[in-house]
């Protein structure tokens, strides 16, 4: 006689623990992040608006708060146009999805709180790096599949940019790995808090600088928004996209931006720890730091002009990568001395 009750209990426990919980967690995470993405666009428009002495969205809902939702509804309703001269319709359709999925997958390994990680893997840092590179794969595919001159140039620029800035970013993170002795993001946060400065942004100031610059380039934001340089390439790689597929690219960009900010919070700013505990909201400090970094991104966009393609490459290879290498040497020396 099999103990059916016990089996069911085990199964239930297993499902709840490993499958149900992960699913629940990831749903919560994706939902929250999507809301964040939507309201990041709103915040961007509002903040830049006020920086430029105008109002920003203020028509839909109170203070324009429903504007992002109205935008999404509008974009979903639109006809899904595939231009007749597209090189490969399948790739054309898939490209925004690749971008978005790759951007969103990184969320799975980022700890928002000690007990809130969808999958706590030991190679988390590598996963994030890999996924952010994959995200630009979608961009390159879109540029090639659109069969438009501007898209193609945008795609080429994106590939060159991502390759050079990926290296700088990874090298900047090597310092963090060396100090923490781990690639698990939860471990990194814990090691950080245990370290004398509480956050790595102080001992790793060079690394932090390189990481932030490279992250802006990685997510194609001003002043490194060359793949979509509006005044040169019209819209770069997504010049042929419209409707929901355009929205997916847009989402992917903001997902990438949020993931990069989260990574910076986790690796350099001490994650969910703060000077004091806020009761009831365990990720209060995490979100606060995240919002600050997002504000920084938006602020940069309102202030700076755009680099030229060759200058961008020069900055990446001649400034950021040597700086990141120098950072590794210094970190190594400190590690050896201590």
């Amino acid at each position, binding site marked *: 006689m099999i103990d059916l009750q016990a089996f069911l209990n085990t199964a239930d426990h297993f499902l709840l623990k490993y499958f149900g919980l992960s699913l629940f967690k990831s749903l919560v995470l994706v939902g929250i992040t999507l809301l964040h993405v939507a309201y990041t666009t709103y915040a961007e428009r509002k903040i*830049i608006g006020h*920086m*430029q*002495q*105008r109002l920003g969205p203020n028509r839909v809902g109170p203070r324009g708060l429903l504007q992002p939702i109205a935008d999404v509804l509008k974009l979903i309703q639109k006809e899904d146009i595939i231009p007749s001269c597209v090189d490969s319709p399948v790739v054309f359709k898939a490209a925004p999805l690749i971008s978005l999925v790759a951007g969103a997958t990184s969320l799975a390994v980022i700890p928002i709180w000690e007990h809130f990680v969808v999958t706590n893997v030991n190679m988390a840092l590598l996963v994030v790096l890999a996924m952010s590179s994959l995200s630009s794969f979608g961009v390159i595919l879109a540029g090639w599949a659109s*069969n438009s*001159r*501007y898209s193609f*140039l945008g795609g080429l620029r994106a590939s060159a940019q991502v390759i050079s800035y990926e290296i700088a970013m990874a090298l900047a993170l090597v310092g963090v790995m060396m100090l923490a002795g781990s690639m698990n993001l939860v471990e990194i946060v814990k090691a950080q808090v245990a370290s004398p400065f509480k956050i790595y942004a102080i001992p790793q100031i060079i690394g932090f600088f390189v990481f932030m610059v490279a992250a802006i380039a990685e997510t194609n934001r*001003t*002043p490194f*928004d060359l793949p979509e*340089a*509006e*005044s*040169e*390439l*019209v819209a770069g790689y997504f010049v042929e996209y419209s409707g929901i597929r355009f929205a997916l690219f847009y989402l992917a960009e903001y997902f990438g931006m949020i993931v990069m900010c989260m990574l910076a919070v986790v690796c350099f700013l001490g994650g969910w720890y703060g000077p004091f505990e806020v009761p009831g909201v365990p990720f209060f400090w995490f979100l606060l730091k995240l919002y600050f970094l997002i504000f920084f991104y938006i602020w940069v*966009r*309102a*202030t*700076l*002009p*755009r*680099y*030229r*393609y*060759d*200058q961008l490459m020069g900055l990446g290879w001649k400034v950021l990568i040597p700086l990141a290498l120098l950072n590794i040497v210094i970190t190594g020396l400190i590690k050896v001395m201590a």
Partner: protein
Amino acid sequence: MPQAVEIIQKQKNSDQWDEPYLVNMGPQHPATHGVLRLFLELDGETIVRCDPRIGYLHRGVEKLSENLTYSQAMVLTDRLDYIASAANNVGYCLAVEKLMGLEVPRRAQIIRVIVCEMARIASHLLWLATHALDIGAMTVFLYCFRDREWLLDIFEEICGARLTVSYPRIGGVRLDFNQKIIDELYRFTEEFPRRIPEYETLIDVNRIWLKRTKGVGVISGEEAVNLGLTGPSLRGSGVRYDLRRTRPYLIYDELDFEVAVEYEGDVYSRYRVRMKEMREANKIIRQCLDKLAECEGEPVIAEEAPDLLIPFSKPKRPQPAPHPKKGFLVKSVEVPIVPEGEVYFAIEAPKGELGYYIVSDGSGHPWRVRIRAPSFVHISALPALSEGQMVADIIAVIGSVDIVLGECDR
């Protein structure tokens, strides 16, 4: 047009990899300032050949002017450089007046200088806004529009129109300034010099801006003269050629202002020239306002100014029989006012030398009106300025020579 399409089609089907990469930039493009079409041959991101195509905004202003009276043709000049339309009107009126030998009252001359310089500031502000936006600095754009809005409001107060003003008349100006306008202009001239440093702090000390503009689109003074560049684009190359000083018109010879000159010949020095010019224009307006107070109450239009079909104080002339030709162009009263002859008159418009070559056969219509538009010449110089540079640079170069397609295509 078919040529480009054919080449692109051919390239699509061929396996050759050494052919240049062709990009058709425009006529709908966010950074070509209108309907300019550039046919670019690229090698990577470097421009091998640049072939500008124009004519998408060709309205036949010269042909239309031949079929209108002198006064009516003035309204068409608004539509040339619609950003600084007052300067176009003044240039046209001056040309016709020179042909007629008409003396313009002093007060009208001062007012014309004021509106010209206002148009210059408005044009340069719009130029700075779009140039900065082209290079990617978004915030400057809206700052500039804030101040341009103020100027347009003053224009509205002066003549009721904001953009296409049609304010000057042959023989003077339409209406005198009232006290409100003068007060507002005093306030503007007081405030504006404080606004310019705001833009400069945003872009002048920005390393990215300097990197994008210094050493880009370089042209020597000699070459620039040969290419026919005029205005700030020429003065950025170190040639002191400003028609307000070289061939003074209106009351510019009485005014105290400096001709802005920079010597590098790149995008950055053209930017510096225009920033300096805005300051000088502000100074000029200030001086003119003081001069305006000296001749309070004097007429603003000459007694013998030709009729406009808008009753000033003169009696109406008998209407002729309606013209048999269909279409919207009904020829109106023909008064033989302009003696036979020809004149080339150029003024220093915000964009450069704006010349009117008018040939009269003694009838009420001009026999030939030719408009020498600075934008036309500047676009023709684009290949020389941009070949060998990168795609991003051509955007900076187009911005730096300051073109308006309405004026280029006429």
